[in-house]
Protein backbone atom coordinates (compact mmCIF):
# COMPACT_ATOMS: atom_id res chain seq x y z
CA UNK A 1 0.00 0.00 0.00
CA UNK A 2 2.88 2.34 0.84
CA UNK A 3 4.42 1.75 -2.59
CA UNK A 4 1.07 2.37 -4.28
CA UNK A 5 0.78 5.73 -2.52
CA UNK A 6 4.35 6.63 -3.52
CA UNK A 7 3.64 5.79 -7.14
CA UNK A 8 0.35 7.67 -7.03
CA UNK A 9 1.98 10.88 -5.72
CA UNK A 10 4.83 10.61 -8.20
CA UNK A 11 2.44 10.12 -11.13
CA UNK A 12 0.14 12.92 -9.99
CA UNK A 13 3.08 15.29 -9.68
CA UNK A 14 4.33 14.26 -13.11
CA UNK A 15 0.91 14.71 -14.67
CA UNK A 16 0.36 18.18 -13.29
CA UNK A 17 3.75 19.57 -14.27
CA UNK A 18 3.88 22.14 -17.05
CA UNK A 19 4.29 19.49 -19.73
CA UNK A 20 1.20 17.65 -18.51
CA UNK A 21 -1.40 16.72 -21.07
CA UNK A 22 -4.15 18.10 -18.84
CA UNK A 23 -3.58 21.64 -20.19
CA UNK A 24 -4.03 20.44 -23.76
CA UNK A 25 -7.13 18.45 -22.75
CA UNK A 26 -8.60 21.42 -20.94
CA UNK A 27 -7.91 23.77 -23.85
CA UNK A 28 -9.30 21.35 -26.46
CA UNK A 29 -12.43 20.67 -24.44
CA UNK A 30 -13.08 24.36 -23.76
CA UNK A 31 -12.51 25.35 -27.39
CA UNK A 32 -14.76 22.61 -28.73
CA UNK A 33 -17.59 23.51 -26.30
CA UNK A 34 -17.26 27.20 -27.20
CA UNK A 35 -17.02 26.60 -30.97
CA UNK A 36 -19.76 24.00 -31.36
CA UNK A 37 -22.68 26.37 -30.56
CA UNK A 38 -21.21 28.95 -32.91
CA UNK A 39 -21.13 26.35 -35.66
CA UNK A 40 -24.63 25.08 -34.94
CA UNK A 41 -26.25 28.53 -35.13
CA UNK A 42 -28.16 30.95 -32.90
CA UNK A 43 -31.12 28.67 -32.13
CA UNK A 44 -30.85 28.50 -28.32
CA UNK A 45 -33.45 25.78 -27.96
CA UNK A 46 -31.72 23.53 -30.46
CA UNK A 47 -28.29 24.00 -28.85
CA UNK A 48 -29.78 23.28 -25.46
CA UNK A 49 -31.44 20.12 -26.76
CA UNK A 50 -28.19 18.66 -28.13
CA UNK A 51 -26.04 19.90 -25.21
CA UNK A 52 -25.72 16.52 -23.40
CA UNK A 53 -24.50 14.86 -26.58
CA UNK A 54 -22.10 17.72 -27.31
CA UNK A 55 -20.57 17.54 -23.83
CA UNK A 56 -20.12 13.76 -23.97
CA UNK A 57 -18.74 13.77 -27.53
CA UNK A 58 -16.31 16.55 -26.60
CA UNK A 59 -15.19 14.62 -23.51
CA UNK A 60 -14.58 11.47 -25.55
CA UNK A 61 -12.72 13.30 -28.31
CA UNK A 62 -10.60 15.10 -25.71
CA UNK A 63 -9.70 11.81 -24.07
CA UNK A 64 -8.18 10.59 -27.34
CA UNK A 65 -5.55 13.33 -27.09
CA UNK A 66 -4.05 12.04 -23.88
CA UNK A 67 -4.59 8.27 -23.98
CA UNK A 68 -1.53 7.59 -26.12
CA UNK A 69 0.72 9.14 -23.47
CA UNK A 70 -0.31 6.90 -20.58
CA UNK A 71 2.53 4.41 -21.07
CA UNK A 72 4.41 5.75 -24.08
CA UNK A 73 6.77 8.17 -22.31
CA UNK A 74 7.58 5.65 -19.57
CA UNK A 75 8.21 2.98 -22.20
CA UNK A 76 10.51 5.23 -24.22
CA UNK A 77 12.61 6.55 -21.36
CA UNK A 78 12.99 3.18 -19.61
CA UNK A 79 10.81 3.91 -16.57
CA UNK A 80 8.49 1.06 -17.49
CA UNK A 81 11.48 -1.34 -17.40
CA UNK A 82 12.21 -0.18 -13.85
CA UNK A 83 8.57 -0.63 -12.85
CA UNK A 84 8.48 -4.11 -14.35
CA UNK A 85 11.52 -5.27 -12.38
CA UNK A 86 10.48 -3.41 -9.23
CA UNK A 87 8.41 -4.64 -6.31
CA UNK A 88 5.10 -3.23 -7.59
CA UNK A 89 2.96 -5.56 -9.67
CA UNK A 90 2.06 -4.54 -13.22
CA UNK A 91 -1.65 -4.66 -12.28
CA UNK A 92 -1.03 -2.05 -9.57
CA UNK A 93 0.94 0.11 -11.98
CA UNK A 94 -1.84 -0.10 -14.60
CA UNK A 95 -4.45 0.79 -11.97
CA UNK A 96 -2.50 3.83 -10.76
CA UNK A 97 -1.77 4.96 -14.32
CA UNK A 98 -5.48 4.87 -15.24
CA UNK A 99 -6.54 6.52 -11.99
CA UNK A 100 -4.01 9.34 -12.42
CA UNK A 101 -5.08 9.74 -16.04
CA UNK A 102 -8.67 10.21 -14.88
CA UNK A 103 -7.71 12.68 -12.14
CA UNK A 104 -5.42 14.73 -14.35
CA UNK A 105 -7.41 14.66 -17.57
CA UNK A 106 -11.11 14.18 -16.78
CA UNK A 107 -11.49 15.79 -13.38
CA UNK A 108 -10.41 19.25 -14.66
CA UNK A 109 -12.91 18.86 -17.53
CA UNK A 110 -15.71 17.96 -15.11
CA UNK A 111 -14.80 20.98 -12.95
CA UNK A 112 -15.01 23.44 -15.87
CA UNK A 113 -18.18 21.88 -17.33
CA UNK A 114 -20.57 24.07 -15.24
CA UNK A 115 -18.88 27.21 -16.61
CA UNK A 116 -18.78 25.93 -20.20
CA UNK A 117 -22.40 24.78 -20.02
CA UNK A 118 -23.39 28.46 -20.25
CA UNK A 119 -22.26 28.42 -23.89
CA UNK A 120 -24.57 25.46 -24.52
CA UNK A 121 -27.56 27.12 -22.86
CA UNK A 122 -27.74 24.05 -20.64
CA UNK A 123 -30.58 24.15 -18.05
CA UNK A 124 -28.88 25.07 -14.73
CA UNK A 125 -31.27 22.86 -12.73
CA UNK A 126 -29.97 19.78 -14.63
CA UNK A 127 -26.28 20.66 -14.21
CA UNK A 128 -25.88 18.53 -11.12
CA UNK A 129 -27.22 15.50 -13.04
CA UNK A 130 -24.77 16.14 -15.88
CA UNK A 131 -21.84 16.34 -13.44
CA UNK A 132 -23.07 13.20 -11.69
CA UNK A 133 -23.21 11.27 -14.98
CA UNK A 134 -19.74 12.50 -15.96
CA UNK A 135 -18.23 11.48 -12.61
CA UNK A 136 -19.73 8.01 -12.93
CA UNK A 137 -19.05 7.51 -16.63
CA UNK A 138 -15.62 8.99 -17.35
CA UNK A 139 -13.53 6.55 -15.23
CA UNK A 140 -14.38 3.83 -17.73
CA UNK A 141 -12.82 5.98 -20.49
CA UNK A 142 -9.48 6.06 -18.65
CA UNK A 143 -9.54 2.38 -17.68
CA UNK A 144 -10.52 1.23 -21.18
CA UNK A 145 -7.99 3.71 -22.54
CA UNK A 146 -5.06 1.96 -20.85
CA UNK A 147 -5.86 -1.12 -22.94
CA UNK A 148 -5.41 0.82 -26.17
CA UNK A 149 -2.33 2.52 -24.80
CA UNK A 150 -0.67 -0.76 -23.83
CA UNK A 151 -1.66 -2.54 -27.06
CA UNK A 152 0.02 0.07 -29.25
CA UNK A 153 3.01 0.69 -27.00
CA UNK A 154 5.78 -0.34 -29.36
CA UNK A 155 4.09 0.74 -32.58
CA UNK A 156 5.09 3.87 -34.47
CA UNK A 157 1.51 4.62 -35.51
CA UNK A 158 0.17 4.40 -31.97
CA UNK A 159 -1.49 7.84 -32.17
CA UNK A 160 -3.64 6.64 -35.03
CA UNK A 161 -4.34 3.14 -33.77
CA UNK A 162 -5.50 3.93 -30.23
CA UNK A 163 -8.72 5.71 -31.33
CA UNK A 164 -9.48 2.91 -33.79
CA UNK A 165 -9.02 0.20 -31.15
CA UNK A 166 -10.91 1.77 -28.29
CA UNK A 167 -13.55 3.75 -30.20
CA UNK A 168 -16.10 0.86 -30.25
CA UNK A 169 -15.80 0.49 -26.46
CA UNK A 170 -16.61 4.17 -25.96
CA UNK A 171 -19.91 4.00 -27.86
CA UNK A 172 -21.99 2.46 -25.00
CA UNK A 173 -20.59 5.07 -22.60
CA UNK A 174 -21.58 7.84 -25.01
CA UNK A 175 -25.06 6.36 -25.51
CA UNK A 176 -25.83 5.98 -21.80
CA UNK A 177 -24.02 9.19 -20.78
CA UNK A 178 -25.85 11.52 -23.13
CA UNK A 179 -29.00 9.39 -22.99
CA UNK A 180 -29.28 9.77 -19.24
CA UNK A 181 -29.33 13.57 -19.41
CA UNK A 182 -31.53 13.64 -22.51
CA UNK A 183 -34.09 11.46 -20.76
CA UNK A 184 -34.29 14.04 -17.99
CA UNK A 185 -34.49 16.97 -20.40
CA UNK A 186 -37.16 15.54 -22.70
CA UNK A 187 -39.16 13.17 -20.52
CA UNK A 188 -38.34 14.51 -17.10
CA UNK A 189 -38.24 10.93 -15.96
CA UNK A 190 -35.77 10.54 -13.10
CA UNK A 191 -36.21 6.78 -13.01
CA UNK A 192 -34.96 6.44 -16.59
CA UNK A 193 -32.05 8.75 -15.75
CA UNK A 194 -31.13 6.62 -12.73
CA UNK A 195 -31.24 3.42 -14.74
CA UNK A 196 -28.88 4.78 -17.38
CA UNK A 197 -26.58 6.29 -14.80
CA UNK A 198 -26.44 2.96 -12.98
CA UNK A 199 -25.44 1.28 -16.24
CA UNK A 200 -22.71 3.93 -16.60
CA UNK A 201 -21.55 3.21 -13.05
CA UNK A 202 -21.62 -0.51 -13.83
CA UNK A 203 -19.50 -0.02 -16.95
CA UNK A 204 -17.02 2.04 -14.93
CA UNK A 205 -16.94 -0.53 -12.14
CA UNK A 206 -16.40 -3.33 -14.60
CA UNK A 207 -13.60 -1.52 -16.41
CA UNK A 208 -11.93 -0.56 -13.10
CA UNK A 209 -12.07 -4.18 -11.98
CA UNK A 210 -11.00 -5.86 -15.24
CA UNK A 211 -8.93 -3.46 -17.34
CA UNK A 212 -5.82 -3.32 -15.06
CA UNK A 213 -5.57 -7.13 -15.27
CA UNK A 214 -6.08 -7.15 -19.04
CA UNK A 215 -3.59 -4.31 -19.40
CA UNK A 216 -1.05 -6.15 -17.25
CA UNK A 217 -1.40 -9.22 -19.49
CA UNK A 218 -0.94 -7.08 -22.61
CA UNK A 219 2.15 -5.43 -21.14
CA UNK A 220 3.63 -8.84 -20.39
CA UNK A 221 3.12 -10.26 -23.88
CA UNK A 222 3.46 -7.04 -25.89
CA UNK A 223 6.62 -5.64 -24.33
CA UNK A 224 9.45 -5.73 -26.80
Amino acid at each position, binding site marked *: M*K*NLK*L*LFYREIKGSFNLKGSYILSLAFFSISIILLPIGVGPNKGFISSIAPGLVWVSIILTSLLSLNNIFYEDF*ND*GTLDLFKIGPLSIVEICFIKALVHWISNFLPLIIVTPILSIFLNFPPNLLIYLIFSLILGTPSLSFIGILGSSLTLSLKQHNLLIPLIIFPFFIPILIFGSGAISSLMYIGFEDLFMRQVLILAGLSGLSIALCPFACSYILNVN*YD
Partner: protein
Amino acid sequence: MRKLNVSNLACYRSGNKIFSDISFDLNEGDVCLLSGSNGSGKTTLLRVLAGLIPISYGSIEYNNMNTLEDNFYILGHRLGIKEEVTPYEDLLFWSSIYNYKNFENVLKRVGLKNYKSLKCKYLSQGQKQRLAISRLLVSKKSIWLLDEPLSSLDKEGVSLLKELIDEHNKFGGIAVISSHNDFLKKYDFHINMDK
Protein backbone atom coordinates in the same frame (compact mmCIF):
# COMPACT_ATOMS: atom_id res chain seq x y z
CA MET B 1 25.05 -20.53 -1.73
CA ARG B 2 23.55 -18.41 -4.49
CA LYS B 3 23.84 -19.84 -7.96
CA LEU B 4 22.77 -18.58 -11.38
CA ASN B 5 22.54 -21.24 -14.07
CA VAL B 6 21.84 -20.35 -17.67
CA SER B 7 21.63 -23.23 -20.12
CA ASN B 8 21.21 -23.30 -23.90
CA LEU B 9 19.55 -19.91 -23.90
CA ALA B 10 18.34 -18.67 -27.27
CA CYS B 11 16.37 -15.67 -28.41
CA TYR B 12 14.60 -15.20 -31.71
CA ARG B 13 12.77 -12.05 -32.70
CA SER B 14 10.44 -11.96 -35.69
CA GLY B 15 11.94 -15.32 -36.70
CA ASN B 16 15.51 -13.97 -36.70
CA LYS B 17 18.11 -15.46 -34.40
CA ILE B 18 19.58 -12.89 -32.04
CA PHE B 19 21.69 -15.41 -30.10
CA SER B 20 21.63 -19.11 -29.29
CA ASP B 21 23.36 -21.74 -27.14
CA ILE B 22 24.35 -19.39 -24.35
CA SER B 23 25.23 -21.35 -21.22
CA PHE B 24 27.02 -20.31 -18.07
CA ASP B 25 26.98 -20.96 -14.34
CA LEU B 26 27.77 -18.20 -11.89
CA ASN B 27 28.23 -18.56 -8.16
CA GLU B 28 28.01 -15.81 -5.58
CA GLY B 29 30.73 -13.23 -6.00
CA ASP B 30 31.20 -13.99 -9.71
CA VAL B 31 31.40 -11.51 -12.54
CA CYS B 32 30.44 -12.40 -16.10
CA LEU B 33 31.65 -10.18 -18.91
CA LEU B 34 29.69 -10.02 -22.15
CA SER B 35 31.57 -8.77 -25.14
CA GLY B 36 30.83 -8.63 -28.83
CA SER B 37 30.27 -6.32 -31.73
CA ASN B 38 27.24 -4.08 -32.14
CA GLY B 39 24.12 -6.10 -32.74
CA SER B 40 25.62 -9.30 -31.37
CA GLY B 41 22.82 -9.56 -28.78
CA LYS B 42 24.43 -8.34 -25.55
CA THR B 43 21.54 -6.03 -24.63
CA THR B 44 18.98 -8.64 -25.67
CA LEU B 45 20.66 -11.27 -23.49
CA LEU B 46 20.58 -8.96 -20.48
CA ARG B 47 16.92 -8.11 -21.13
CA VAL B 48 16.10 -11.82 -21.48
CA LEU B 49 17.85 -12.49 -18.16
CA ALA B 50 15.79 -9.67 -16.64
CA GLY B 51 12.58 -11.18 -17.97
CA LEU B 52 11.83 -8.13 -20.11
CA ILE B 53 12.03 -10.24 -23.29
CA PRO B 54 10.66 -13.80 -23.35
CA ILE B 55 13.04 -16.74 -23.67
CA SER B 56 12.75 -18.57 -27.01
CA TYR B 57 14.65 -21.67 -25.87
CA GLY B 58 16.69 -22.73 -22.87
CA SER B 59 16.36 -21.96 -19.20
CA ILE B 60 17.46 -19.58 -16.48
CA GLU B 61 17.66 -20.84 -12.92
CA TYR B 62 18.54 -18.95 -9.80
CA ASN B 63 18.95 -21.03 -6.65
CA ASN B 64 17.21 -23.84 -8.53
CA MET B 65 14.14 -21.67 -9.19
CA ASN B 66 13.04 -21.09 -12.79
CA THR B 67 13.14 -17.34 -12.46
CA LEU B 68 15.36 -14.57 -11.14
CA GLU B 69 12.23 -13.39 -9.25
CA ASP B 70 12.99 -10.14 -7.44
CA ASN B 71 16.70 -10.78 -7.09
CA PHE B 72 18.06 -8.68 -9.92
CA TYR B 73 18.34 -5.12 -11.13
CA ILE B 74 19.07 -4.09 -14.70
CA LEU B 75 20.90 -0.91 -15.62
CA GLY B 76 20.20 -0.43 -19.32
CA HIS B 77 20.61 2.19 -22.02
CA ARG B 78 17.30 3.83 -21.16
CA LEU B 79 17.80 5.23 -17.70
CA GLY B 80 14.20 6.01 -16.78
CA ILE B 81 14.99 9.50 -15.55
CA LYS B 82 12.24 12.12 -15.64
CA GLU B 83 13.43 15.58 -16.64
CA GLU B 84 11.26 17.50 -14.22
CA VAL B 85 12.35 15.72 -11.03
CA THR B 86 15.55 16.31 -9.08
CA PRO B 87 18.06 13.53 -8.26
CA TYR B 88 16.94 13.83 -4.63
CA GLU B 89 13.26 13.29 -5.50
CA ASP B 90 14.09 10.48 -7.89
CA LEU B 91 16.24 8.57 -5.41
CA LEU B 92 13.82 9.30 -2.57
CA PHE B 93 11.10 7.59 -4.62
CA TRP B 94 13.15 4.54 -5.57
CA SER B 95 14.74 4.14 -2.14
CA SER B 96 11.25 4.27 -0.57
CA ILE B 97 10.04 1.67 -3.07
CA TYR B 98 12.98 -0.58 -2.17
CA ASN B 99 12.88 0.26 1.56
CA TYR B 100 16.38 1.71 1.60
CA LYS B 101 17.00 4.21 4.40
CA ASN B 102 20.26 6.09 3.86
CA PHE B 103 19.76 7.20 0.31
CA GLU B 104 21.42 10.57 0.91
CA ASN B 105 24.69 8.74 1.55
CA VAL B 106 24.24 7.01 -1.79
CA LEU B 107 23.80 10.37 -3.52
CA LYS B 108 27.02 11.52 -1.86
CA ARG B 109 28.79 8.30 -2.86
CA VAL B 110 27.95 8.70 -6.55
CA GLY B 111 28.98 12.37 -6.51
CA LEU B 112 25.55 13.94 -6.89
CA LYS B 113 25.22 15.51 -3.45
CA ASN B 114 25.84 19.01 -4.79
CA TYR B 115 23.35 18.51 -7.62
CA LYS B 116 20.58 16.92 -5.64
CA SER B 117 18.22 19.89 -6.04
CA LEU B 118 18.88 20.45 -9.72
CA LYS B 119 16.24 19.21 -12.14
CA CYS B 120 17.43 16.15 -14.04
CA LYS B 121 17.03 17.95 -17.37
CA TYR B 122 20.03 20.10 -16.39
CA LEU B 123 22.25 17.12 -15.52
CA SER B 124 24.92 15.91 -17.93
CA GLN B 125 24.58 12.43 -19.41
CA GLY B 126 27.35 11.21 -17.08
CA GLN B 127 25.51 12.58 -14.06
CA LYS B 128 22.32 10.87 -15.21
CA GLN B 129 24.29 7.62 -15.46
CA ARG B 130 25.54 8.18 -11.90
CA LEU B 131 21.94 8.67 -10.76
CA ALA B 132 21.00 5.39 -12.44
CA ILE B 133 23.92 3.72 -10.65
CA SER B 134 22.66 5.11 -7.35
CA ARG B 135 19.32 3.35 -7.94
CA LEU B 136 21.26 0.15 -8.42
CA LEU B 137 22.66 0.60 -4.93
CA VAL B 138 19.33 1.32 -3.24
CA SER B 139 17.70 -1.69 -4.92
CA LYS B 140 19.85 -4.05 -2.76
CA LYS B 141 19.59 -6.81 -5.37
CA SER B 142 21.98 -9.75 -5.51
CA ILE B 143 22.25 -9.90 -9.31
CA TRP B 144 23.32 -6.83 -11.26
CA LEU B 145 22.73 -6.82 -15.00
CA LEU B 146 24.73 -3.90 -16.35
CA ASP B 147 24.40 -2.93 -19.99
CA GLU B 148 27.32 -0.75 -21.11
CA PRO B 149 27.49 0.83 -17.66
CA LEU B 150 30.50 3.00 -18.58
CA SER B 151 28.66 5.02 -21.18
CA SER B 152 29.13 8.74 -20.51
CA LEU B 153 31.11 8.15 -17.30
CA ASP B 154 34.35 10.03 -16.72
CA LYS B 155 37.50 8.40 -15.28
CA GLU B 156 36.35 9.03 -11.74
CA GLY B 157 32.97 7.52 -12.55
CA VAL B 158 34.58 4.43 -14.06
CA SER B 159 36.73 3.83 -10.98
CA LEU B 160 33.67 4.39 -8.75
CA LEU B 161 31.74 1.79 -10.71
CA LYS B 162 34.63 -0.69 -10.50
CA GLU B 163 34.76 -0.10 -6.77
CA LEU B 164 31.00 -0.69 -6.44
CA ILE B 165 31.16 -3.89 -8.50
CA ASP B 166 34.06 -5.15 -6.34
CA GLU B 167 32.09 -4.40 -3.17
CA HIS B 168 28.98 -6.08 -4.59
CA ASN B 169 30.95 -9.24 -5.41
CA LYS B 170 32.74 -9.20 -2.08
CA PHE B 171 29.36 -9.41 -0.36
CA GLY B 172 28.27 -12.34 -2.53
CA GLY B 173 26.57 -10.48 -5.36
CA ILE B 174 26.64 -11.62 -8.98
CA ALA B 175 27.22 -9.23 -11.87
CA VAL B 176 26.66 -9.76 -15.60
CA ILE B 177 28.22 -6.86 -17.46
CA SER B 178 28.25 -6.02 -21.14
CA SER B 179 31.01 -3.72 -22.22
CA HIS B 180 33.21 -2.80 -25.16
CA ASN B 181 35.71 -1.40 -22.72
CA ASP B 182 38.20 -3.64 -20.91
CA PHE B 183 37.73 -1.79 -17.63
CA LEU B 184 37.31 -5.08 -15.77
CA LYS B 185 40.75 -6.48 -15.09
CA LYS B 186 39.31 -9.56 -13.47
CA TYR B 187 36.23 -11.55 -14.31
CA ASP B 188 35.13 -15.12 -13.71
CA PHE B 189 33.35 -15.83 -16.93
CA HIS B 190 33.59 -14.33 -20.40
CA ILE B 191 31.02 -14.67 -23.14
CA ASN B 192 31.93 -13.49 -26.59
CA MET B 193 28.59 -12.96 -28.30
CA ASP B 194 30.24 -12.90 -31.76
CA LYS B 195 31.14 -16.59 -31.55
